[in-house]
């Protein structure tokens, strides 16, 4: 008897009487054997303290009654996901995910596939008895063709699908290092099963990888057979469909190692980009020429025009200056080329409504944006648009200033179309005096702190935008 079993099964209806030392499994059931081999392997490898066993839903739900290891009972089908959680929480732990055929091969297919493909060192024991035991003998994904079950009373037909060969499926993946299918029906098979289970845990203990053992098992109760007949049934009916043997056994070196989580203050501040460096301020007062306490902007264009980046820079500059500011992006479903607009608010005290349905300032990078949002700009507001690509101007409200500046052309002349949003920022600053240009340039420098080589180009773009706007103003005067 293995010392990995509890000396008394106290969790089993309080461990009274027979239940204190006998399993809940039916006579002839394979689960008891598999768990005995598990216990013996854990003992032999000396990993009892480190082991976490994940009990499934199904007849083995009560595995935690028996094994004196850390135990977690999982939701139906999810044991491999729970196992990943455990392994990631403590890479030193030996995690054994134990599942039946309904659990692993039906409801939990996605979870076992991911766990196998991730290939983390863990041990999955898959007990396949071709039927649902706990719920009372219904068809399993591994039920044989023609096999009678409670939900295939006339036998499993072709329409009900074919038996699912999990060991072969798992062995096809690149994640697992060891996959074997074993059985329990005679001494030879039991010896192989013992060895396979021992190896599957050893592979994990040595950090070699994901190991999967499928055990063909007997369910005499739902086969309506004696234990001996059930053994014969597995041997004669199951093994032709589920061939026994090693499906995969890679020679791998131990590879798995994880460091202990880092909780140093300094490191955390570094990775989140927090710093103590004082940012210079340039603003004397809130730009009340636009609004006394809350300025709304909208920047709109096609995805990739840079509206969001420009909005971000304005927001950053405003917060640097001690104002409150918010930026809400709005994208179409496409990553590039769809519509994209940004709502920005700058408030002297606190931004309340962060959306900009009626902005003071609109920057439009393409014609649809100008047509759509131009008319929403408040009376007395300002619109800047890219005259490289926009030739038609919508009707706007009273006293709205419209400036067509060739953002794209200017950027192209500078050698990089991508900086058209910075050209627009320069023009915006010159047209509205929203913030001193040093504020915006500082925000640009901060944003490009990791790409310093880009700073001169962006500064040139900003200046060019401002110059173009001034030329346009001069032309009008």
């Amino acid at each position, binding site marked *: 008897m293995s010392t990995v079993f509890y000396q008394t099964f106290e969790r089993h209806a309080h461990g009274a009487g027979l239940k204190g030392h006998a399993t809940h499994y039916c006579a002839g059931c394979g689960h*008891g054997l598999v768990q005995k*081999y598990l216990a013996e392997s854990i003992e032999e490898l000396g990993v009892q303290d480190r082991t976490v066993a994940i009990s499934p839903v199904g007849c083995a739900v009560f595995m935690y009654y028996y094994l004196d290891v850390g135990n977690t*009972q999982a*939701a139906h089908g999810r044991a491999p996901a729970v196992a990943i*959680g455990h392994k990631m929480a403590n890479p030193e732990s030996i995690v054994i995910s134990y599942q039946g055929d309904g659990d692993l091969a039906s409801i939990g297919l996605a979870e076992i596939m991911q766990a196998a493909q991730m290939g983390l060192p863990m041990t999955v024991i898959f007990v396949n008895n071709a039927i649902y035991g706990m719920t009372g003998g219904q068809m399993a994904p591994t039920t044989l063709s023609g096999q009678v079950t409670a939900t295939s009373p006339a036998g499993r037909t072709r329409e009900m699908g074919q038996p699912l060969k999990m060991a072969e499926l798992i062995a096809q993946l690149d994640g697992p290092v060891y996959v074997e299918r074993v059985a329990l029906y005679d001494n030879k098979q039991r010896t192989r099963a013992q060895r396979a289970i021992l190896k599957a845990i050893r592979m994990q203990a040595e950090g070699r990888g994901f190991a999967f053992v499928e055990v063909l098992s007997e369910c005499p109760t739902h086969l309506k057979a004696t234990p001996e007949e059930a053994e014969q049934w597995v041997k004669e009916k199951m093994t032709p469909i589920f061939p026994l043997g090693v499906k995969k056994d890679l020679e791998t070196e131990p590879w798995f190692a994880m460091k202990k989580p880092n*909780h140093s203050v300094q490191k955390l*501040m570094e990775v989140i980009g927090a710093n103590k460096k*004082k940012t210079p301020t340039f603003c004397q007062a809130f730009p009340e020429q636009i609004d006394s306490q809350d300025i709304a902007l909208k920047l709109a264009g096609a995805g990739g025009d840079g509206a969001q980046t420009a909005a971000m820079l304005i927001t950053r500059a405003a917060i640097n200056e001690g104002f409150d500011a918010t930026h809400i992006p709005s994208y179409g479903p496409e990553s590039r080329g769809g519509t994209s607009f940004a709502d920005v608010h700058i408030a002297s005290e606190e*931004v309340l409504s962060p959306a900009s349905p009626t902005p003071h300032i609109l920057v439009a990078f393409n014609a649809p944006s100008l047509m759509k949002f131009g008319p929403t700009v408040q009376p007395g507001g300002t619109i800047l648009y890219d005259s490289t690509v926009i030739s038609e101007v919508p009707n706007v409200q009273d006293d709205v200033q419209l400036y067509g500046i060739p953002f794209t052309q200017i950027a192209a002349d500078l050698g990089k179309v991508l900086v058209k949003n910075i050209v627009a920022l320069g023009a915006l600053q010159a047209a509205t005096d929203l913030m001193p240009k040093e504020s915006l340039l500082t925000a640009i420098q901060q944003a490009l702190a990791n790409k310093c080589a880009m700073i001169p180009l962006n500064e040139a773009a900003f200046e060019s935008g401002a110059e173009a706007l001034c030329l346009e103003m001069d032309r009008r005067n």
Partner: protein
Amino acid sequence: MIKATKQKERPKPFLFPEFCKACGRCITACPKNCITFGDTINPKSGLMPVQIDMELCNGCGLCLSACPEPYGLMPQVDNHEPIDPKTLFGEKNSTASKAVRVPDEVLPLPDMNPLIIKGTYASAIGAALAGCRHFFGYPITPSTEGAELMAKILPELNGVFVQAVSEVATVNMMYGCGGAGMRCMTFTSSPGFSLMLEGISYMIGAEVPGVFVNVMRGGPGLGNIAPEQGDIKLACRGLGHGNTYAVVLAPSTPQEMLELTMLAFQLSFKYRHPVIILADGYLGQMTGKVNLPKEMVKPGLPDWAVFGDEAHRANLICSIELSEQDLEQHNLHLMEKYDRMISTEQRADCYFCDDAEIVLVATNTPSRMAKGAVEELRRAGIRVGLFRPISLWPFPIDAFEQSISEARKIVVVEAGNGQLEDEIRLAMSKAGIMNYLPIEHIQRYGGVLPSKQAIVDQILAKEVQQ
């Protein structure tokens, strides 16, 4: 048995007759045919255990490795005579030691510049400051940026980022990792949150902590990726099957995204219970100013964790209770926790409620519009206030009752079909506030938020009528 085959002396088996289920596996295993089905009923088990002819037995051990029962057939110890299991096994059930709780440490933070970040980033950073180094998630707009930041920063902190195969897998990874005593979290959005509910019920049942940040989007179905508040009923009334509740926190600024995420971890471990943060699509994506707190947490390790070491070997994470009496006791235990949450975790922000004749109730981004409306209506001489619940469950009824003491009506502003309003009505009913004030509402759906102007206009229109 591997050990047995290595042993030089080959022990003969002995049988505890009451633990033999007479499956007969040992009979077919025995090459000497010394085991036969029995013919005597064991008075304890009511079964007929097998019989072994010890004269024929050569101690090959094959029957031992064929017996599915841990204490059925065992290697012989001192003699062949079956012994009373009680005297054989003694009193002690497990040799595992008793785990000791390792307490959290609080580490002071230096004064830093405010961060300029979006709401999901603020939440992710709040999690990191709360000691979270394990993230599990599945990408879904508009929550994904939070996961992306975690994918970037956690490896640098020797933490773990796992992109799960689905939200179902996500919540179960959290079940495992939280059950191991680690601080773990996810970002998701409405459809993904629906998928996690089953797992949240398991976490509540098994008392596993974990933080869920649901950046709500427009629904039902696939809906859209714009902000809505359509998951309030899920979070407050429908956390999976069973008698489930959890603390639900609703931020309204990126700053609160950080602070409430930190709080969520604290509460999650205080109660050994999941905590839900309900944000909305705007809040998740909105960039704003975020001040860092004065301190961060270096987490310890709880004594109840299934960590996978000697100290925690005796532990069990489990939500199955077969006996009705046990499960009722467990529910009573959970209800006692809920009562403690109700009495200590109500949080709210009151804005000009003291003398308010009209109290607006709003949360998340709509509360910002409502706050703007309050300012504008006050300038128009109307005594309006804003009550902003920060904990949606437990609903801050005590503060609410106070805030409506001068009111003649309540106006609920929400981006949803009355789910917040239902919480208010239920909370008032439970608190025994019998004579409801009239409750009006301003609602938008599908990703449209009530605008400040709409709130002002509706209130003004009604006031002018009167």
